[in-house]
């Protein structure tokens, strides 16, 4: 049985690299990413799972890293916005004016990226279902919608 008591070293796979990080069982994944690994792309917008600004991918699916213990991430592949390397959705957000202040952007990018991987043919309803997990206070969502549509299989024609 795996256990983690007191302060312990967790082996995490983050952005394709294995890192050993000193953490406590009560540390959330968000906290470890930001404070121990310096990956501040994931943001603590609410730490309550409501806003999605801290979203990362765990085994390719979006997870709100504020509601996951770092200890739970052992044995799973974590991808943060820093691990996206010229993903189409990043360019799409720039081209479509998909952000203003930029604070929610990392989280939206991760959800959109995962959606495109799992459902390259996603329709409006599916886009909404996935992206309703995140809040943006600056845009009215039109640009984010256009950005994600532009990278889906049949592109912006359906926009």
């Amino acid at each position, binding site marked *: 049985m795996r256990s*983690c008591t007191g302060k312990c070293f967790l082996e995490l796979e983050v952005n394709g690299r294995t890192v050993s990080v000193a953490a406590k069982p*009560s540390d959330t994944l968000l906290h470890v990413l930001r404070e121990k690994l310096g990956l501040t792309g994931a943001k603590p917008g609410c730490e309550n799972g409501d806003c*999605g600004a801290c979203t990362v991918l765990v085994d390719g699916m979006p*997870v*709100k890293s504020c*509601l996951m*213990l770092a*200890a739970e991430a052992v044995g799973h592949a974590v991808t943060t916005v820093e691990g996206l390397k010229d993903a189409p959705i990043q360019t799409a957000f720039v081209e479509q004016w998909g952000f203003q202040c930029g604070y929610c952007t990392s989280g939206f990018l991760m959800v959109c990226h995962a959606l495109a991987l799992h459902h390259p043919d996603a329709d409006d309803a599916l886009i909404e279902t996935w992206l*309703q997990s*995140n809040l943006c206070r600056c845009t009215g969502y039109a640009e984010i919608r256009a950005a994600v549509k532009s990278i889906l299989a049949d592109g912006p024609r359906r926009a």
Partner: protein
Amino acid sequence: MIPFDFDYYAPETTGEAFNCYAKLSKAGKRPVWYAGGTELISMARVGSRTFGAVVDLKGVPDCTRLAAERGRIVLGAALTLTEIARSGLFPLLGSTAARIADHTIQGKITLGGNLAGTIQYRESALPLLLCGARAHVMTAGGVEKRPFSQVFSGRLHLEEGEFLAAVDVPEREAALPHCHAKRTRQDKIDYPLVTLCAVRDGGSVRCAVSGYGSAPLLVPAQALAGGAAVCGELAGEAADSLSGSGAYKRFVLENMVGQALANLGVK
């Protein structure tokens, strides 16, 4: 950021989990069962829950079973809502699960966590209450299968140290004609004003609601006889909440029941 420390254990069998919890309990570590963790982490952060250890059930194979066997569908308690919805094995539970919290969190919330949570809505109980479910409860003597309605009335009632490993429902009942509706104050992503699940079994309809009262409840059969009567029967249960007043919930429920009966082809 959780303002206190605790230990983390990830057992690999039901027995190991049971013993681990018992040992921690005996040692005064105040353990809690842990699966998705979404509610525990958020409540711990604001200080409304404290504990000394978590026992994570996600690595216990019995808790992540997902199978149709001997005429029953078995769903592990540590399956996520997304896994349940995607399996398609129990469509009513799938529809209900797909409207709890939001899509990202559905990938973290587990069936057992939703049933055992302290947040009152526990919407995934509704399909189980309607479809003859059994609860697989891990006890000192091993896994016991009990009628779901016996372990769940408003909330999950288990002995300290026991845990819900899985549930099962008869395939026939899981396939009954059904309907699910969730109404909120205004937003799609919100706690329910009223969530309603209903199934039609031959000529009779069974219906359960959450959000309306202070816990999930079955709508008495006689209340379904006429739309307006629902309010009369359940009037006393309607509770004011941030989502809406009790009086408004009565209005909403009446509409929803009418719509559900129509959808199920019942007058």
